[in-house]
């Protein structure tokens, strides 16, 4: 795959003057083979996909994109940014323009400690490395721990942006299915036992326990406790990816894995992307010191240090007022958008569809009847100028073909309603057509059967596709159908 998970439409890309970028004609067929011969073997596992080619169409302005994972940066007050950057320039210009320490600036780490405290965690500045977004943490942790063929455990489905990272380090990813309480820890343990019998120990378990991307579900407190126990019992590292924890629209927050573990086996990934801006590319990792030391070396090799400009921007932003105010305003906006999307789904999607009801975060995961392939559905939906992420992007083995991820943070409520209406119409058409093809009402495959591993797949690595249960109300649909 490569889905550009946070794809932003480029501006004027197609029609710029070609002057100044003239190149010699080089790529002959001989050259192609010559390049191919030079590629590292890991590039073979870095898959392109039909989906990537479709990204160019999704980026067109007339398309309602429910595909990205974009926060609504238009709600950030420009005057605040002006004030912060002005202070940054007048008070700390030389340092902002300079290299900084690999692990990050002390001021920024203080901001990070504040954010972590807001989620019930204490972090020692010495245990933090500031990174270029959360994505770099996934990359650095994988780089630090994974040799080709090593096992990484992830959720099924998992964050689509982690797929190319694990693939590029040639990890063997085993995905554990989830239900509405997050990763099935019982299945995790079964899988760990099975792997142990084969003499294999996973290097780490990658999880987004809170408002998971893409499934939108949250790991229950008992499962969190059990996961931490499992990590201790088996001495396994866990990478807790928590970009959305503060974007909660209902209920009360659960302890993070890191808080439960106390920093023994849990590595924690945080980011400013969803609470301030993804454009500043600032994230962080907190990990046990020996691991952190290696991550630091990897970070040095990758980019020496994270943008000092961005780090000081965060510092001055935290100085000028309460950073939580903006998070609160985002929460209001996103809650309304989530509700709009859930209502629209209930109104426009056929009853054969199921979806999750997230209490926070940015995504809803929809599962359609088994006979619908969402990559093809996306091509059809694009004719109606609407886009989503096909579910197979969240798997390593072609599963998830009948699921899709919908984002509700990046579009306004009118666009969400219209987008869902258009997708729903296409799905309904396909369901009806299937009925025609098979004679009579669509024989919707029972969930359990639909999720059984396909016979041609050599081995089912741990998890299977068990769609997450539907919690949407039926009343909304009854209304429309009557």
């Amino acid at each position, binding site marked *: 795959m490569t889905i550009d998970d946070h794809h932003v439409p480029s501006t004027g*890309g*197609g*029609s*710029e*003057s*070609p*002057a100044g*970028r*003239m*190149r010699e*004609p080089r*790529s*002959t*067929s*001989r050259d*192609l*083979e010559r*390049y*191919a011969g030079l*590629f590292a073997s890991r*590039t*073979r596992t870095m898959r*392109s*996909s*039909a989906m*990537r*080619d*479709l*990204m*160019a*169409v999704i980026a*067109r302005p*007339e398309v309602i994109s429910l595909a990205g994972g974009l926060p609504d940066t238009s709600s950030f007050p420009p005057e605040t940014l002006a004030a912060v950057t002005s202070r940054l320039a007048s008070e700390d210009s030389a340092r902002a323009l300079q290299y900084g320490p690999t692990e990050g600036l002390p001021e920024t780490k203080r901001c990070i400690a504040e954010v972590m405290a807001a989620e019930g965690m204490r972090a020692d500045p010495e245990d933090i490395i500031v990174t270029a977004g959360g994505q770099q943490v996934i990359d650095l942790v994988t780089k630090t721990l994974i040799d080709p063929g090593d096992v990484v455990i992830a959720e099924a489905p998992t964050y689509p942006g982690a797929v190319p990272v694990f693939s590029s380090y040639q990890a063997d990813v085993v995905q554990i299915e989830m239900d509405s309480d997050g990763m099935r820890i019982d299945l995790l343990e079964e899988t760990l036992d099975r792997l142990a019998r084969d003499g294999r120990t996973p290097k780490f378990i990658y999880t987004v326990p809170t408002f998971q991307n893409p499934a939108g579900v949250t790991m229950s407190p008992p499962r969190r406790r059990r996961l931490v126990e499992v990590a201790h019992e088996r001495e396994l590292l866990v990478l807790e990816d928590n970009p959305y924890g503060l974007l909660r629209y209902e209920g009360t927050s659960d302890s993070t894995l890191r808080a439960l573990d106390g920093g023994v086996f849990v590595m924690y990934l945080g980011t400013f992307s969803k609470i301030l801006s993804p454009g500043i590319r600032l994230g962080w990792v907190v990990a046990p010191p020996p691991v952190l030391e290696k991550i630091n070396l990897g970070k040095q090799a990758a980019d020496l240090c994270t943008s000092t400009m961005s780090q000081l921007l965060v510092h001055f932003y935290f100085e000028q007022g309460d950073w939580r105010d903006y998070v609160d305003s985002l929460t209001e906006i996103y809650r309304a958008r989530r509700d709009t999307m859930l209502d629209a789904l209930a109104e426009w999607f056929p009853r054969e569809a199921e979806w999750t009801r997230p209490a926070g975060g940015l995504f809803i995961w929809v599962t359609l009847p*088994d*006979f*619908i*392939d969402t*990559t*093809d*559905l996306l*091509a*059809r939906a*694009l004719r109606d100028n609407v886009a989503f992420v096909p579910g197979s992007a969240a798997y390593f083995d072609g599963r998830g073909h009948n699921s899709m991820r919908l984002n509700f943070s990046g579009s306004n409520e009118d666009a969400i309603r219209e987008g869902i209406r258009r997708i729903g119409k296409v799905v309904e058409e*396909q369901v009806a*057509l*299937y009925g*025609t*093809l*098979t*004679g009579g009402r669509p024989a919707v495959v029972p969930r359990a059967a639909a999720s059984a591993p396909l016979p041609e797949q050599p081995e089912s690595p741990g998890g299977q596709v068990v769609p997450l249960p539907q919690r949407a109300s039926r009343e909304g649909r009854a209304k429309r159908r009557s």
Partner: protein
Amino acid sequence: MSRVAVLKGGSSLERQVSLRSGARVEDALERLGHDVVPIDVGADLVTRLEDTAPDVAFVALHGRDGEDGTVQELLAILGLPYTGSGVLACIRCMDKVLTKHLLLDAGIPTPEFFAFNETAFRELGAAKALPAIEERLEWPVVVKPAGQGSALGIKFARSAGDVPAALIAAFSYDDKVMLERYVKGRDLAVSVLDGADGPLALPVVEAVPREEDFYDFEARYEIGRTEFVTPANLPDEVTAEAQRLAVAVYELLGCYGVARVDLMLDDSSGELFVLEANAIPGLTETSLLPQAADAAGIGFDELTGRIVELAFARSASATSA
């Protein structure tokens, strides 16, 4: 020196490939000394063409609108010379079902097939005819949308149970689809380029997947996952026959300038079958036409230049006629 508008992008599913083809053509045209006007095709296409007043349009579009005759019709109305095939040939190539009917009529071998449009299922009960078709084609069967140029929407059905879902997928791209006999064998492409002495077949390109997965269409045209052998390592008579068939298809469909004909060499019978013709072959680094031209000693700039000259030549002959 001429002013050349390069039409690329658009809203087709092959937008990405088209942008890459277009960018490469722009570079070549500049090196040839032309004044290049890049146009990402959209609602303002006619305005852009009127404002920039090019001498000729280089059509580097793939898929819907660009390759199906729509844009060509518009350029003809505007009286602007354009590269590649005319409206009728584009329509014939874009619709694989139409192509195959024409091939059958002309006695050119093409795998057995059955085509349906959505109305046949919705209103004429065509589903009842599926078992009869399945009996005649043998498994696996390839299910394709009639009008999609890339690998998107092409599915293998290994048994009757796979057919409905494969049809749904194909109908996502077009309201006409076909079930085609699967030819297991070697994947060949022959590009045809017009010359002084009429259409000339370029060396045969074979796409050899590095991984033995015949069902993975996506892998086919990706560097590193598919090896392109040009000229294909074939017996002389097979090469000659593939080239002869390609030129015959080119002429039958009324193509102009350049086109690419895709064939299969059946492993079991040794027969060649024509799958389809592409009126606007890709011009990216991994595309087959540039590789074939290169193997024939025609570099990318020369190829681009020749395609533009042919556009002027057609326009001139149309005016003098």
